[in-house]
Each structure stands twice: as C-alpha cells, then as structure tokens.
C-alpha cells in the first residue's frame, strides 16, 4: 500500500466522519438536551438546503445564504416546538409519531413545491492532488467546519448563560424550575438551536450533497444511531461514536462497496449497544 493512498484514505474518511457529525449534532442537541427524538431531523436538513438554494437563486452570496438558512430553519424549529413538541414532553412515542408525521408533510411539500430534481448550487469544485489520487478541497474544508462547529457548540453549552441553564433544565426539569428557571422558554430555544444546526448542515453540505426532497433519509438513520450509541454525555459521546462510525464505514466502503460500508456501520452500532446498553458514555463523568 502506498503512502499517498493511505493519506487519501485517511482524509476522505475524516471528511465523511465530518459530514456525519455536521448532520448529527442538531439531533444530538435535541435528543441529548431535551430527550426529544426528532424523526423530522432529516427534513430539517432538507429545509436548510432548500432555504440556501432559494437564497442563492435570489442573488445572496453562498456564505450569507448559509447564515440565512440556519436562521430560517431555527425559527421554523421554534414554531414547531411551540405548536407541536411543547405538548408532548415526556411522551416519547407520541413525539416519535408527531415528528414522523411532520417529516412526511415536509417531504411531500418539498416534492410538490420543488419536484424531485433540483439544480445544484454551481459552486466551482477544485481538487488537490495527493500523489496519484485527488481529493475535493471542499470535502477537506468540511473537516475544519466540523471541528469549529463542535468547538463552538461546546463553548455555547458550557460557558454561556443559555448553555448552563439548558443543561440544568434537561438534567432535572422540576429542580430547575425550583431555582427559577423557566423551562418552557429554554426548551423552545434549545429546539430552535437543534433545528438551526440541521439547517446549517443542509446549507454547508449543499455543494457536496444536492438538495432533493429525500436527502434527509440518508442522514437521519445514521445520525439517530450515532446519537443513541453515544449515550448521556451527548456532545463528546456523539463526536467519539460519530467519527469512529463515519471513518470505519468509509474505509470499508472504499475497499469494497458503499453497501458493505453501511452494513459495517450498522453492525458496529449494534455491537456498541450490546456492550454499552446506555451508550458508550453511560459511565463517563463529563459535562457534555
């Protein structure tokens, strides 16, 4: 095996782990901080992708379109929390059902409005050469995005007033209210944050993954498995599990086929959950 091949494999695996993490953190925030399994997470990603597409089509430059999509999806998520999720806290199956319904509505609306084929973003894709192999610069850039994204999220949730309060509210809602926390408002903000992160994922991944009504399906299952296997220390656990699964999946896929990669991904998740029924971070003593 050649060095250039190994370097390319490592980088491409890192970038597919980065894509998985970018697509997963929103779900990790919702599930980890609120106990809500949002089956519409994939459609929130799609929402962000179409919002970006719309913004670029009316002439907003791509970097600003990402911010626009993030904010619009966050606001949309906040409205969903106020209208639907708010009534269902602590009723996990009802939340599953409601968010699944929401995902169907969003998917069908996208089909009706945009059709099943959509134009790409038309961003020039440049490649770098590593020995005999070439890699897309954009995919490498996504590694940096994932690192910065997770770093800022960790900062937001451990250093800011909102973050400390949100973590308290999810650890013990009743006690949080007994020290003055208005959990309802915090929950709306957290759901909006998780939705905004999904929107950001759809926007930032758009050059690599074009907007289609069913683009969410590809992510939501893997994202969901990564979050469940991560366990209670949400962010660190998700980074550990997500990057491992993403990389192993990609390495197997590059030796055989992407189907084998997916199978290995699922087998690995099942194994993790057999060994650590509470997720790998079940016994970790960490903040997040």
């Amino acid at each position, binding site marked *: 095996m050649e060095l250039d091949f190994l370097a390319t494999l490592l980088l491409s695996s890192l970038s597919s782990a980065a894509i998985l993490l970018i697509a997963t953190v929103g779900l990790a925030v919702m599930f980890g901080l609120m106990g809500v399994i949002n089956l519409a997470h994939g459609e929130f990603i799609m929402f962000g992708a179409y919002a970006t597409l719309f913004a670029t089509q009316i002439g907003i430059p791509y970097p600003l379109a990402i911010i626009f999509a993030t904010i619009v999806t966050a606001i949309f998520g906040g409205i969903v929390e106020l209208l639907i999720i708010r009534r269902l806290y602590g009723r996990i199956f009802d939340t599953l059902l409601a968010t699944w319904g929401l995902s169907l509505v969003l998917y069908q609306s996208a089909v009706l409005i945009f059709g099943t084929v959509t134009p790409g973003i038309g961003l020039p894709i440049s490649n770098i050469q590593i020995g005999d192999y070439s890699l897309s610069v954009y995919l490498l850039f996504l590694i940096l995005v994932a690192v910065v994204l997770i770093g800022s999220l960790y900062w937001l949730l451990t250093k800011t*007033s909102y973050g*400390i*309060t949100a*973590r*308290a509210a999810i*650890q*013990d809602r*009743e*006690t*949080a*209210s*007994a*020290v*003055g*926390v*208005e*959990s309802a408002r915090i929950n709306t903000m957290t759901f909006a944050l998780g939705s905004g992160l999904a929107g950001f994922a759809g926007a930032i991944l758009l050059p690599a993954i074009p907007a289609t009504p069913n683009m969410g399906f590809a992510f939501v299952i893997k994202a969901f498995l990564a979050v469940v296997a991560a366990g*209670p*220390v949400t962010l660190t656990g998700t980074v550990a599990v997500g990057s491992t699964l993403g990389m192993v999946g990609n390495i197997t896929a590059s030796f055989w086929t992407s189907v084998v990669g997916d199978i290995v991904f699922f087998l690995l998740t099942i194994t993790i959950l057999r060994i650590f029924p509470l997720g790998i971070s079940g016994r970790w*003593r*960490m*903040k*997040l």
Partner: protein
Amino acid sequence: MLQISNANGGYKRVTIIRDCSLRVGKGEIVALLGRNGAGKSTLMKYTMGLVDTFGGSVSIHGNTLPLSTSKRVKMGLGYVPQGRYVFPRLSVPENIAVAALACGHDRHESIDDAFNDFPILAEKKDALAGTLSGGQQQILSIARALATKPQVLLLDEPTEGVQPSIIEEIGEKLKRLNEERGLSILIAEQNLDFCLSISKRAYILNNGSISHETTRQELIQNKTILHELLGV
C-alpha cells in the same frame, strides 16, 4: 412574611394535605415536624407550586403568589429539596450559576458569594456536583437556593443522610444567615434535636393536617406532644 392559608394539595386527584395554614414571620426560623408520611414534603412542594393545588394560597408580604414555581422563586421563595437534587453533570459553580442567572443576578458575583459563605465549595470548584459526598451536595443545594436571593428559605429534611459534623455546620450557617441577613427559614425535619437547636417555633403535621402549633419550650417540656410526634 410567608403565609400559607388553607392549603389543599396532592397529586392528580389524591389529596395529601388538607387545610394546612402556617405563618413564618420576618427573620424567624420555624420548624415543620411530623412522622414519615405525614405530608411534610408535600406541604413544602405545595408552597413551591410543585404539586397540584386544590385550594388555598401562599403569600409573601401579603402578595398572593402565582402557581408557577419559577415565578414563586423570583418572588422570594428559596427551596432546598429533600434528597438535595443538585444537577449532577453540572460543575459546582455551574449549579450556583443556574440559580443566579434564572433570577437575574450576576453569576460570577453569586459564585464568589457562595464560596465565601461555604469555603468547602470553593475547594470543589472543578468537580461535577454528582461526584460530591451527600453532605457536600446538601451544602451545594443550600448555596444554590441562596443564589436566588430568597426572602424565605424552605429546607426539606436537610439533615437526611448527612454526617453529624456537617449537620452541625449547616445548623450554624443557617443560624448566622438568619441573624446577619434576617433570612426567614422554614425547615421540614424528622431530626428533632436539629430543629430544637435552631428554631423557636414549630408546627406539627399529622396525617396531612397541622395538629399543633408549638414552641421550643413547650416541646422540651410537654412529653405528650413529643410522644405524638415521634410515637409509632
């Protein structure tokens, strides 16, 4: 100061406390005594708006409090729950910060105040609350309640599962907060010695209703009340 009038409350349709009325004056330490299952915790939770209210009201300085727990905290009720309930995956200073922030106080100032009041917490400033001992968690829970800057502090069984040396420390601290800052305190307890050491007046709760209002002298002298209180 704190006035609970004709409290009726419980869970769903089950009434646990009936027609309980009590008063805690400004700068007073009052004990709420009773056997296991008498309804002490439920009355404390009723006061905080943490159980269903079927009737009655809670007021501070004559202002009737709304049902919302977080609003009651902001209007001057501090609460130390039975079993402490610190936020386990938050650090010691973060536990205090949550309370301070929720009530609109500066978090760094509040953490400094808490560390001055309870130096033992300053030694644990990097620890997650879940890793502290029972007694340390109890102190943290009290410090957290104080960070809301309450006018009345409600403590539910603060000595339960706490080692004697820390019980004594907690008692001293509460007495000093009461004397120096005029903090009014209501303590629900089974530990009679602890209550007699800090409170001058007590209510006795029996089967969900307040059966006696009494004083420290009377409790020490009148064995029938003590017997009724502790008898099995």
